[in-house]
């Protein structure tokens, strides 16, 4: 075991921090607090990712044949940590580089790879994820959006829900049912659909999380060539399972929570609240949760660095990140009192991100089911 960063990793982090310090605008914190769905942050994310790409940092963990430098997973995780701690200036593009790109590498045709991977690795493209449906949330297999084959064309009908970033996205990675007679894992396919295809309609779902955070996406006789399908027809579940293993730990929530907590401790000091041992106790407790989440997340990255197949380490890390996020979010509101209630304030912006932690990219209960079955080997109910 080795828990020190290598000299190269340290240098890499220092360089990246210096870059962030230089490149993030002075009013970045206000921009970031608008949330990743806001117009201004989406526009900034395009500029930011282009710059990352130009410096070879956006997809350095990708294989060389796809424009990466095949750096160890740790290198990319350092960027993830620093970005999340700073309000994720990559916006939705963290999804592209963490799992959509790798899924295309694994399952894509030569044409798909040639088209999509350079767009992703140059930071030119925004993606969103069309998985959940009104009747298919945690139980994703229940999805009903259909893609009926008409020669070399799919005709898509149905709707997706809870979609983030869709208002700015160029593409949607879409789960559809290609076999109408099946309601099981088989019969699902993955399509890579350009968002400007006629027949797609987007409606915002106003929410307390933030502006343009959730959307519903409607598909009415949307026609796309079958060549947009990723992986074999009717066997998209395997593609998604592969992608989700990478998605579920993509977000370094612990890094943002830990930084928020340090700032909260400063706020508490300014208000004289560090004299209160109960406040100190709660701050320290939250810190332990962030640190435990960091170690469990590192363990997932380590598993990848050793080229082991993804295991339940992923779910353990996800649950730990959720616990940390909630603890810091709740404490921030409690300690800052009424000031926390003002929209766009430090506490409010943090709380709005933290409160989705247990639901975003798969409910905590589903993660716990997987831990019980696969990590503890408990019998099925």
């Amino acid at each position, binding site marked *: 075991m080795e828990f*020190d960063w290598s000299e190269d990793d340290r240098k890499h982090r220092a360089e990246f921090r210096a870059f962030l310090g230089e490149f993030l605008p002075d009013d970045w914190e206000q921009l970031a607090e608008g949330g990743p769905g806001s117009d201004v942050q989406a526009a900034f994310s395009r500029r930011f990712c282009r710059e990352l790409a130009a410096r070879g940092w956006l997809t350095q963990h990708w294989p060389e044949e796809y424009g990466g430098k095949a750096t160890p997973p740790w290198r990319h995780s350092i960027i993830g940590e620093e970005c999340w701690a700073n309000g994720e200036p990559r916006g939705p593009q963290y999804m592209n580089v963490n799992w959509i790109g790798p899924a295309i590498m694994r399952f894509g045709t030569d044409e798909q790879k040639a088209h999509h991977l350079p767009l992703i690795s140059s930071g030119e493209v925004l993606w969103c994820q069309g998985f959940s449906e009104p009747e298919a949330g945690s139980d994703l297999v229940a999805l009903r959006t259909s893609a009926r084959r008409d020669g070399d064309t799919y005709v898509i009908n149905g709707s997706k829900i809870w979609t983030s970033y869709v208002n700015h996205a160029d593409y949607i990675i879409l789960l559809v049912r290609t076999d109408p007679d099946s309601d099981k894992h088989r019969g699902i396919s993955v399509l890579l659909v350009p968002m400007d295809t006629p027949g797609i309609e987007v409606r915002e779902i106003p929410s307390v999380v933030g502006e343009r955070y959730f959307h519903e996406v409607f598909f009415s006789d949307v026609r796309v060539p079958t060549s947009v399908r990723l992986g074999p027809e009717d066997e998209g579940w395997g593609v998604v399972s592969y992608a989700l293993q990478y998605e579920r730990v993509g977000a370094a929530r612990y890094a943002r929570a830990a930084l928020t907590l340090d700032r909260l401790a400063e706020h508490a000091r300014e208000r004289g609240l560090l004299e209160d041992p109960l406040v100190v106790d709660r701050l320290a407790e939250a810190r332990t949760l962030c640190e435990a989440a960091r170690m469990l997340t590192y363990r997932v990255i380590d598993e990848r660095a050793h080229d082991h197949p993804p295991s339940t380490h992923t779910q353990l890390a996800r649950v730990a990140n959720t616990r940390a996020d909630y603890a810091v979010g709740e404490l921030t509101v409690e300690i800052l009192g009424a000031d926390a209630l003002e929209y766009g304030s430090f506490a409010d912006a943090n709380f709005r991100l933290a409160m989705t932690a247990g639901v975003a990219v798969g409910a905590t209960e589903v993660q716990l089911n997987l831990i019980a079955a696969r990590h503890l080997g408990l019998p099925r109910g």
Partner: protein
Amino acid sequence: MDFELDDDQREILGAVERLLERHAGQPRATELAAKAEYDHALDEALAEAGFDEMVDLESRSGALEATLIVEAIARAAGVTSFAAHALVARAALGEAVDGPVALAAGDPSAPIRFGAHARTLLRVDEDDVRVVPLEGGDAEPVASNFGYPLGRVTEDALARGRALGAGSGATLRCWWRLAIAAEAVGTMRAALDCTVDYLKERRQFGRPIGSFQAVQHRLADCSVRVEGSRFLVYEAAHSRAPEEATACAAAFALESARLLFRETHQLSGAIGFTREHPLHAWSMRLHALGSELEGVRGHRRALARARWGVS
């Protein structure tokens, strides 16, 4: 970064686990606890096999290797002060002292883990440490239900010994916190394994209890806490017990220990409280470990001091 054991570590761990299979384990712990006895035979076996000094604490990952041994002994419910004499004393003093070793702080009249059997007491006094040699008659056994033999050391004995000097108290506290956290990790792992095994077998309402989702989620939450504690401990050990990392590991592990006690007992039902069922050998100890160095609130205070300079 590398979260996997290297060959040396795997070998050390394998060797100590084989030794513990022969010389420790829950039935032995239960038997010794009934008589409030200390396991001198286990200490001898560990010393003979060279584990006390196998690990060079000055080497790059020596402290981590010693910590792995401490964790393994706790999993096997060993009744030994190995954590105190082979890790804490050696690391904090830079030399070995006569074992068994007891560690104490705070109220001098409070019972001390291994106090009645120790030949050396390390007593933290503010920022200093007193190294107190103990002889027969210096301590009285104290009956306890919490899985370790306890003793109360006389005032006369406490007045003896040599002081190590300013700064030694802080250093010793760090290593002590690491040791408690490592023992808690080994103990929690065993308590959880024991409970999971039982719940796979025990049937009610025509199915194994462990198949109920209400039970599964609670056990899954326990494993998140146990695995998180483990790696916080390993990282703190690897970096040779700095204040922030050890306080963080101990605060998280001992808070987790409270959850583990509650959940393993609740889910095991009445049988879990009996001496015929193995759970008590680990579960009761979790609270004993949680009482040292002012417990979770002491660890959290130390963490806040190290992290945010809270006085």
